[in-house]
């Protein structure tokens, strides 16, 4: 690692030469012994330090012992008066970041340097000492630091100020005492001192809004000279504007004049900072935008790529919200399409696609076509996505845009790029009916020569859904059947399914489809043969009994209602018997995490356990089997939901217990999973005594104790409650674990005869409303919402009080309701002030429920929520509101 050049020693010697060739850590550490010589040779010492720094810089690490040794050796070098060597010593100490008791060794040397006459010593000693020191030492040197801040040498002042910024993170109370000196430094004539002082002053006062506002007010009157400090001031100003905006919505925006005047500053960085600040103002008006856009437009034709990039990047953001404001720059942006820097060109194109009007689309597309051939895939994807949104904006232009997409589809490109194009075409087909036929044909042509199996199967699937609905479905058959000849098994199988869909939907094509499907019966792959046989049978191709249309459609086009993971586990658990596998028995609930019991697999078979020796249950249907095997619970009916295990003990206690809540229509069963973690004892007659006095609607009907609980083999005890039917009874239960303890002889493993009765307090357990709702997602929320109808819709508004942010509010409601968030709406974009969240679930009694939540947050962080519920049952819609109202 330390010798990056060694491996290429055969190459050109001059180019490969390095003074560090063949350098080795061990040897350099040996060399460091020269630091201990009584007669120091500064040059030689500098040289060794450089080597050490080289090693560290190349990623080499020193062990603790090595670092300590080097550190102590380096401290000896303070004896030398050589400036260059001292500078290297400073660097080395910073790199070694010594620990507290080592710091003490160098403190006095550094403090001496801090008071030296040489400015370089002072500045560097301050930076080093502040870097390595902790709070205790700070009070000793505080006096010197305060002096240094107002030192007439700008290097010393900057060193102290920057160190102050770093120390503020760990010891704010000390740095806050320097306010006066820092304030004085803000007035410094040295540009960077002013910058550092302003940064520190703001950080000292950042939590005091009034003070920040005062600071901004006084400084914007024009005493700041340094461009960097000016940039800082612009940032502080826009922060003040942002915070005051919610209070005074009337009249002129405060400080806008200042921002505007910065657009005329002579330093480009200040102009850019100001222009960006203006474009990012909340609710910026087009009048306010104009001057900022004008300076950015000038930047677009700068000779400096960095400036062009900065300008186009800012304009690109503006175009998302105010496309009209940017149109003036269109001509300048068009010339950037041929920019050498591809990032600039791509940003220019995507901005143009946002600002362009309908008439300019064709011209633009022509320019982009030339550009596309010489940019990397990552940029092409950005362009494709921009074109997709442009097409949705101007549906009339679909022809040229679709042509463009199909042209680039034919060119070379990687998977991600092709996928982006396919996705765009599919979206256009869905949203623009006129584009369907041409789009489908483009896709057909693409699969004729597609190297990506994934894309081919996706397209075939899509063709099966959309193709039969077109005016002339037969023209697609050729493309699809060609796949059966030319592709791998996965694509062939997918083509077979697609053909079957055409057969099912288009009666006139059926006989021809049968011919094609029969040919597939001799395919070399069994999946392809199986599918062909299956479809021939369902569609009646074998002259066998034809299923009803509805069943067939459901079979071919319906979506799988159960999550695939659950289906997989159920199929694995299924034991071949007379009873055939029932898909309805597959739980529909999405398990977000594996059950905690997986952590404690039964190492030994649980002896003397009445419950089935299947060990820990891992899925909901395993729970169901477990419960139905217990006579007392077999009459409870179908299990509705099992909760995730709730821990009732803390980790590391003698007995660990968690509970799973099983909800039935009229009963609730608590399954206590107990583990005995003490090798010397055996527990017998283990039961949980439940006090349900805080849960009035529940009455205990059965309890099933655990006869014996040996060391480290988990066992279960159950308690069952009855509750009113159809009521989502909630309540709190307190639990005590009761058992008989018997000591075990470690040598024989035999338990003693006599035991002692004992109790163990467990934590409380709650049954909450979310326990009565299953997390069941829907794939298309809008469709589900529309088809549910508004008959039992209930809408109401709630105030959720002050919250940290919207994410917290959204999560709280989701957890309260225990429903499945749909379409990723549980994620709140950062800093957004409003959010919509879609939830779906199944309420006890198998009633589907859909919920639409709209959140808004105001300046005081108060969150308001609108809740709209649709369900198949009026009382369920009301119940959801009740949950929220009482939660």
């Amino acid at each position, binding site marked *: 690692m330390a010798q*990056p*050049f060694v491996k290429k020693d055969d190459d050109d010697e*001059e*180019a490969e*030469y*390095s*003074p*560090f060739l063949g350098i080795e850590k061990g040897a350099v550490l040996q060399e460091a012994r020269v630091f201990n010589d009584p007669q120091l040779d*500064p*040059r*030689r010492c500098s*040289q060794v*330090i*450089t080597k050490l*720094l080289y090693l560290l*810089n*190349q*990623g080499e*690490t020193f062990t603790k012992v090595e670092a300590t040794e080097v550190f102590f050796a380096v401290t000896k070098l303070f004896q030398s*008066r050589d*400036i*260059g060597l001292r*500078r*290297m010593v400073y*660097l080395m100490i910073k790199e070694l970041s010594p620990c507290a008791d080592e710091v003490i060794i160098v403190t006095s040397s550094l403090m001496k340097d801090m008071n030296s006459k*040489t400015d*370089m010593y002072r500045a560097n000693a301050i*930076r080093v000492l502040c*870097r390595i020191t902790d709070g205790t030492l700070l009070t000793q040197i505080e006096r010197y630091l305060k002096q240094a801040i107002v030192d007439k040498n700008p*290097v010393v002042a*900057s060193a102290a100020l*920057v*160190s102050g*910024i*770093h120390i503020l993170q760990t010891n704010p109370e000390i740095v806050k005492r320097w306010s006066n000196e820092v304030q004085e430094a803000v007035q410094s004539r040295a540009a*960077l001192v002013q*910058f*550092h002082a302003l*940064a520190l002053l703001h*950080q000292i006062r950042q939590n005091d809004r009034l003070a920040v506002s005062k600071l901004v007010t006084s400084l914007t009157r024009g005493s700041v000279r340094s461009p*960097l400090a000016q*940039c*800082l001031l612009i*940032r*502080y100003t826009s*922060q003040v504007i942002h915070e005051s905006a919610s209070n005074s919505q009337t009249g002129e925006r405060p400080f806008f004049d200042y921002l505007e005047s910065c657009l005329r500053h002579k330093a*480009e*960085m200040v102009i*850019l900072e100001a222009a*960006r600040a203006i474009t990012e103002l909340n609710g910026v008006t087009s009048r306010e935008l104009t001057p900022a856009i004008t300076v950015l437009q000038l930047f677009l034709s700068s*000779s*400096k*790529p*960095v*400036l062009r*990039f*900065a300008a186009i990047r800012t304009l690109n953001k503006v175009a998302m919200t105010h496309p009209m404001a940017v149109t003036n720059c269109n001509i300048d942006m068009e010339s950037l399409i041929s920019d*050498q*820097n591809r*990032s600039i060109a791509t940003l220019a194109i995507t901005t143009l696609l946002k600002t362009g009007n309908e008439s300019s689309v064709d011209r633009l597309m022509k320019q982009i076509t030339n550009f596309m051939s010489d940019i990397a895939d990552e940029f092409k994807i950005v362009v494709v996505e921009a074109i997709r949104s442009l097409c949705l904006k101007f549906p009339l232009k679909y022809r040229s845009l679709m042509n463009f997409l199909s042209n680039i589809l034919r060119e070379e490109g990687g998977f991600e790029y092709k996928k982006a194009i396919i996705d765009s075409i599919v979206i256009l087909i869905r949203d623009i009916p006129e584009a369907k036929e041409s789009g489908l044909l483009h896709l057909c042509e693409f699969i004729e020569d597609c190297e990506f199996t994934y894309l081919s199967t996706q397209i075939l699937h899509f063709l099966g859904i959309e193709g039969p609905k077109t005016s002339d479905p037969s023209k697609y058959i050729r493309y699809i059947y060609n796949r059966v000849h030319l592709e791998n098994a996965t694509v062939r199988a997918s083509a077979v399914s697609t053909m079957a869909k055409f057969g099912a939907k288009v009666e006139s094509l059926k006989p021809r489809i049968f011919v094609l499907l029969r040919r597939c019966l001799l395919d070399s792959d069994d999946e392809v043969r199986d599918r062909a046989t299956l479809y021939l049978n369902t569609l009646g191709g074998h002259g066998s009994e034809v299923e009803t249309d509805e069943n067939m459609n459901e079979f071919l086009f319906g979506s799988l209602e159960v999550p695939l993971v659950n289906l997989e586990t159920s199929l694995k658990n299924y034991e071949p018997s007379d009873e055939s596998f029932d898909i309805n028995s597959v739980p529909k609930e999405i398990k977000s995490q594996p059950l905690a019991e997986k952590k404690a697999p039964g190492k030994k078979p649980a002896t003397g356990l009445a419950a089935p020796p299947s060990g820990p249950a891992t899925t909901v249907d395993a729970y169901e089997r477990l419960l139905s095997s217990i006579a007392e619970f077999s009459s409870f009916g179908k299990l509705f939901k099992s909760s995730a295990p709730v821990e009732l003990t803390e980790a590391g206690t003698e007995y660990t217990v968690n509970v799973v809540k099983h909800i039935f229509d009229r009963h609730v069963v608590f399954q206590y999973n107990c583990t005995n973690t003490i090798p010397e004892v055996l527990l017998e007659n283990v039961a949980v005594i439940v006090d349900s006095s805080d849960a009035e609607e529940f009455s205990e009907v059965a309890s099933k104790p655990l006869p014996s609980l040996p060391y480290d083999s988990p066992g279960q005890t159950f308690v069952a409650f009855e509750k009113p039917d159809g009521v989502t009874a909630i309540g709190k239960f307190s639990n005590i674990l009761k058992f008989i303890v018997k000591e075990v002889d470690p040598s024989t493993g035999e338990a003693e005869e006599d035991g002692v009765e004992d109790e163990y307090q467990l934590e409380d357990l709650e049954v909450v409303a979310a326990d009565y709702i299953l997390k069941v997602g829907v794939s298309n929320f809008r469709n589900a919402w529309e088809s549910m109808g508004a008959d039992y819709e209930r809408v109401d508004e709630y105030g959720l009080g002050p919250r940290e942010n919207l994410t917290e509010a959204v999560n709280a409601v989701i957890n309260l309701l225990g429903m499945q968030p749909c379409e990723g709406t549980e994620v709140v974009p950062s800093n957004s002030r409003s959010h919509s969240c879609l939830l779906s679930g199944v309420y006890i009694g198998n009633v589907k429920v859909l919920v639409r939540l709209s959140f808004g947050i105001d300046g005081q962080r108060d969150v308001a929520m609108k809740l709209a519920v649709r369900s198949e049952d009026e009382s369920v819609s009301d119940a959801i509101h009740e949950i929220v109202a009482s939660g």
Partner: protein
Amino acid sequence: MELCPSVKNVLLLDSEGNRVAAKYYCDDWPTNSAKEAFEKAVFTKTQKTNARTEAEIAMIENNVVVYKFVQSLHFFVTGGEDENELILATVLQGFCDAVGLLLSTCSRGHVDRREALENLDLILMCLDEIVDGGIILETDPNVIAGKVASQSVDAGGPLSEQTISQALATAREHLTRSLLN
């Protein structure tokens, strides 16, 4: 919210992408292999561009990277996604020109990988004078080079009486001798 402009790293690579000197000021790349991976990404993405007359710019892993090439040396300065590009460019310019100034006076006039390695102490001091823990310390190349040069001579005479170029000449002699020993 962090309002102070900050630099995430400053890199100096050779024309093959090997690290000559690098300084990281944030925890985005915690391990040396993460750092090397970032340097490789930066190097390959910028390799083919012509960043010789004017500094260039690219977005890499959601960071703004400004860069400039001088002979066989590739200079990079990285900042956060929302950082003012021109501030980063100023830092880059300071670094690039200061190194150029130091190398062209302290060595045989070449600004290349070999000279950079032979004068690595100057370059490390240079980095130390430009950014301190992510905060910009100085951006004027003359001031940076002057500080580094004045520090690398013996405290023989009062500094104010020496011009920078004199100082640099002494430094050059001092360093080439010491490193080639």
